[in-house]
């Protein structure tokens, strides 16, 4: 697993996430507020894709998520910028069925899994996609009930997604975003050793 991009959002307040990010068509920008990605929005959904690199099809997206009382923040994979096409994991503080994996295919929304899941603001959520397999991890532990297989979307970017859920919205935030792939990373300075006896 390799980290391909990070954004701690540690910078001045701004109307969107900046030059490395692209707002998904039909969605609103996610602003920077107090060194975090932050949205207080009752009506419009938000989505931004990290587009400063070319993403492999197998990818992950993660961030520390804090949900407002109305509205669900989440992390997204295979997020396409020119159409509302994406896989994303949504989390909020509803009493039941508060976590979901969702797909939008050119705007048509389908719930792939929906479970009741203990959640504390600030938990680290990661959505991984490899081939047709979607895996959600919370603070490094797989959230089994959210695992899914889906073959509709084959490519796109890692990013952030937000579902607006009506009046009374309070602030949702994302912090310390990271995206990556599943290649084998060799840390700088490590040495590969080959035992030639095993190669005979």
């Amino acid at each position, binding site marked *: 697993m390799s980290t391909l991009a990070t954004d701690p959002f540690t910078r001045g307040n701004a109307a969107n996430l900046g030059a490395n990010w692209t707002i998904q068509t039909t969605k609103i920008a996610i602003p920077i507020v107090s060194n975090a990605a932050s949205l207080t929005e009752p009506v419009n*959904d938000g989505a931004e894709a990290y587009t400063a690199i070319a993403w492999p099809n197998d990818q992950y997206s993660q961030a520390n998520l804090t949900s407002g009382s109305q509205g669900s923040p989440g992390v997204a994979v295979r997020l396409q910028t020119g159409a509302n*096409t994406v896989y994303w994991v949504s989390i909020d503080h509803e009493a*039941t*069925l508060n976590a979901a994996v*969702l797909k939008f*295919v*050119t*705007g*048509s*929304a*389908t*719930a*792939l*899994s*929906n*479970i*009741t899941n203990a959640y504390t603001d600030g938990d680290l959520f990661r959505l991984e996609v490899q*081939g*047709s*397999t*979607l895996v959600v991890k919370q603070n490094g532990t*797989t*959230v*089994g*009930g*959210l*695992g*899914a*297989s*889906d*073959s*509709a*979307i*084959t490519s796109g970017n890692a990013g952030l997604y937000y*579902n607006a859920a009506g009046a009374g919205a309070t602030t949702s935030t994302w912090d310390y975003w990271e995206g990556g792939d599943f290649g084998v990373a060799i840390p700088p300075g490590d040495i590969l050793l080959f035992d030639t006896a095993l190669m005979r």
Partner: protein
Amino acid sequence: MTINLYVMPIVGTGAKTDMRRPKYKDSVFPTLSWGMYDYGNEPWCLVGIVDIPVATDTALTANPDCLGLPTNLDQTLTTAQRNRVSNGLESANIPGTWLTTSNTWRDAVRFVGAICQFAQRYQGLVTGSLWFTGGVTLATTYGALPQAAKDGLLAAAQSFSFDTSGLVAGSTLRQVLVSVGNQYLASQPPLVLAGVTL
């Protein structure tokens, strides 16, 4: 954690406030955890419901359009079960006549899962397009399908690197879907539903 599996209709327009979801989610199991494979754009789905109470399972399977599967998927089908499953799948426009009494429930559900994955790929390639519309049935030949459907089926099969030699004018849609379903299963990808590998 126990998963009960069902084939049932899917409802919802796909709008954010009316997401596509299992038909009986709101009315029969509104608070239970679940996962779903949609049959692409078709109005059917395979649903896994977590730890469903017996009374709720009974209420679900009392609906004639809801096909329930046992929790032990490794039993072979009896003749009566084979007939019920085959008819249930065919009524959902999912090929079912290939089933025999030597098949297990797992064979049946993995095939449905595979067909759903193929239909989803088609969904991603041909937005909003249905196979079973305008009089098209499983018995309709590939050659009689609208050109957009033929192109989409071919593109979906090619995207999985399937052998497409069976996509010829005289093949029925049933034959095409059985072929791609079996090819999907032969590639042995994981089929995960509500966190459980089928």
